[in-house]
């Protein structure tokens, strides 16, 4: 006999009634669940006990020590969730999964297209169990099409979306953006759509299936460049930090502080007035118009670089912002941790942690004036809440859990 369900402690906030079963991994999918947990949703993160989430084995690591419980990246995208391990290759684990599907409102997953189908756990099957299910399937290239089964990280997504090609110097191979770029825009599109789906279900009772190709999210951010070519314009190439409408525009060397090897400032001149202000500071011709500045880009960049390299990046930033020119020092992560603006927004949130004493996660990327986010607990350790979830949510007995473990469903 099963025990009566007593469920998990409820969250606070606008999503307090929402239950998410989060089978996604690494960054794009888990980031969506993190955002929902911040606003009160009950999120159960399901991990494979054998295939370690890559987010656990890339840094940054606490105290710079690698290890599956050390990653601040994993911590950042999974804070506030409950964590269980299920080996879905085992039939008994799939039974547990089906029962959790009936418990939840939303399933979020990012298996390679076709994997859930083989296990009879894809949307058409789960919909039979729960017709009003909301489900997000998020992969690099989507659930359909000839390349649907391409495996990969957002680094592969960067290749397939064009952003890898479009980041670099004109005279060199592509440098590419930092990390798995398609993981960054994707959760914004997915979160917005899932919250819209909850609203839709609330009004209509209808279930919703969302097929996300993460690369297509990045294509939205590259749309102007792609549309240009597709509508008879030129093929856009990578162009360093040059901009067709802004000059000067670039990253300039500054005088390093504190034994650092380098220091830089970003600077963007958008108007003739801004140019006059900058020209006065560096001793250049203030009368140049945009076309002239674009034409003399190289010598002007040199002149700015000579001026900036005598100064601290923070001094250049302050001096230019004081006269209305867009500039900012290139932040290291140390700089970011001391940045007064990020501090003003309480961007770095400290949480007690069983292993590390304390961990740090980022705050949500928006501030809601009347619905403050609450990061209720750090990300789960591997399988930390197996027993809690199996007993409280599914009402399993100790004997049933022992049988599951013996079948290899949990480890």
């Amino acid at each position, binding site marked *: 006999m099963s025990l009566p369900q007593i469920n998990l402690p409820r969250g606070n906030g606008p999503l307090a009634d929402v239950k998410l079963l989060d089978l996604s991994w690494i960054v794009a999918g888990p980031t969506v669940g993190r955002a929902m947990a911040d606003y009160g949703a009950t999120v159960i993160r399901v991990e494979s006990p054998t295939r370690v989430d890559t987010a656990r084995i890339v840094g940054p690591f606490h105290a710079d020590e690698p290890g599956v419980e050390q990653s601040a990246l994993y911590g950042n995208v999974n804070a506030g969730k409950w964590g269980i391990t299920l080996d879905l290759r085992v039939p008994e684990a799939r039974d547990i999964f089906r029962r959790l599907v009936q418990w939840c409102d939303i399933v979020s997953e990012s298996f390679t297209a076709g994997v859930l189908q083989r296990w009879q756990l894809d949307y058409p099957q789960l919909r039979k169990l729960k017709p009003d299910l909301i489900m997000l399937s998020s992969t690099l290239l989507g659930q*359909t099409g000839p390349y649907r089964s391409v495996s990969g990280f957002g680094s592969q997504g960067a290749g397939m979306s064009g952003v890898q090609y479009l980041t670099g110097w004109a005279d060199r191979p592509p440098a590419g953006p930092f990390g798995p770029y398609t993981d960054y825009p994707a959760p914004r599109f997915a979160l917005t759509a899932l919250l819209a789906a909850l609203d839709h279900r609330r009004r209509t009772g209808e279930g919703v299936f969302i097929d996300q190709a993460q690369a297509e999210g990045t294509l939205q951010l590259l749309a*102007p460049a792609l549309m240009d070519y597709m509508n008879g314009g030129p093929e856009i*190439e990578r162009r360093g930090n040059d901009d067709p409408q802004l000059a000067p525009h670039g990253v300039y060397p500054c005088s390093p502080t504190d034994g650092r090897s380098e220091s830089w400032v970003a600077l963007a001149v958008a108007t003739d007035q801004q140019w006059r202000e900058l020209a006065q500071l560096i001793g250049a011709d203030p009368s140049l118009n945009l076309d002239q500045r674009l034409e003399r880009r190289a010598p002007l960049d040199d002149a700015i670089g000579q001026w900036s390299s005598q100064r601290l990046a923070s001094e250049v930033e302050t001096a230019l912002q004081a006269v209305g020119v867009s500039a900012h020092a*290139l932040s290291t992560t140390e700089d*970011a941790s001391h940045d007064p603006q990020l501090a003003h927004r309480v961007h*770095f949130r400290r949480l007690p942690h069983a292993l590390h004493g304390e961990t740090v996660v980022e705050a949500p*990327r928006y501030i809601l004036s009347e619905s403050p986010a609450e990061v209720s607990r750090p990300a789960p350790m591997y399988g930390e809440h197996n027993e809690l979830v199996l007993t409280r949510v599914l009402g399993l007995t100790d004997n049933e859990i022992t049988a599951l473990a013996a079948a290899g469903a949990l480890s």
Partner: protein
Amino acid sequence: MLSPYRVVDLSDERGVLAGQMLADLGADVIQVEPPGGSSGRGVAPFFADRPDQSIYWAAYTRGKRGITCDIESPHGRDLLLRLLDRADFLIESSDVGRMARLGLDHETVREHHPQLIYISISAFGQSGPKAHYVGSDLAIWAAGAPLLMTGDDDRAPLRVSQPQAWGHAAGDAAGGAMLALHARHQSGRGQHVDVSAQVSAAQATLGQILAFSVGAVEPERFGGGIKLRGVGIRGTADVLDGHVVVTLAPGPAIGHFANHAARWLVEIGAADRRLLDEDFVTYADRAAAGRADPDLFPRLQQLMRDEVAKRTKQEMLEVSIEYDLLLVPVLDVVDVAESRQLEARSFWREIEHSDGRRVTYPGPPLQILLDNQPMVDQHRQPPTLGQHNAEIYGELGVKADDLMRLRSEGVI
């Protein structure tokens, strides 16, 4: 999905994607521009045959309706407030302080429009020591920290050649707007959503923004890959006609992909069958304990580089699909435009503009089933300047002769 909701979108080029995301989900989005047109209409690139028409603006106003309104004038402000009577969301991306100066900030507007969800997108946020800083794609990317991590290690750090920072912020604005909608279901009240593009940009650091805070080393930039403890690791490889992104590593997370690569190398005769005896999932631990050949994995990497270099991007993509490798081509703009995958997913859409031109656009970012049926998206041309003035002001009860007067006074 969002068809019951109306969005009044005052954003310029800095936030214009947010409203489009809501439009793609079915919301009625009204782009409000000054009578002379949004500054976003001046952002490059431009249609080749129409040097005055911004592709940037077209790309992010598709699916919206459009009106003009001089919100700097008292008449225009009144019109906007009437429009807000029936609105659920307002999105704005003005310089911080401008909306307050116009008496259109959240504090003021909520008095008569308590239902309204008011979303502000700015470079650094609505308050704080840098709130009045002048923002730009590059400065935001610098302040949010991805800029220093990007680029070749022997040159200055780099941004993406198509500006990205405001797009990330707009994406967060759409998510924040929807969270506030769920809060309104509980409380009956709207609220203010304050989006900082600096914070949005920090998403593009892969959590490295936390490195110093947790005691980890600073990340270092390395073109085409990453640098770990001073050692550059290439994540790309050369092919005959360009480059591929390839991830190859032993270990429990992705070691099985290295096994797949070994199988490919053996089957094409580039490697000895004994390579198949190794399991790269467990290899790293055994190599560290002296129970596996420490040179084996580096040899696998070199073999991969050698064989990949003899093939084209397309050939390697096909190999990658057949053998399940973590390898894809670095597509350029033409490759993306001609992608068979995007074609099969009907990603590109042609829209006929009112002047008869057929213009190719990206479709919505997601494919959605409602009750198992494909969601019909609103696919219409971006509004011309003031295209829906008569229609929308008509809905507010503004009469035709009043419209004429407002036009002659320069309010619309």
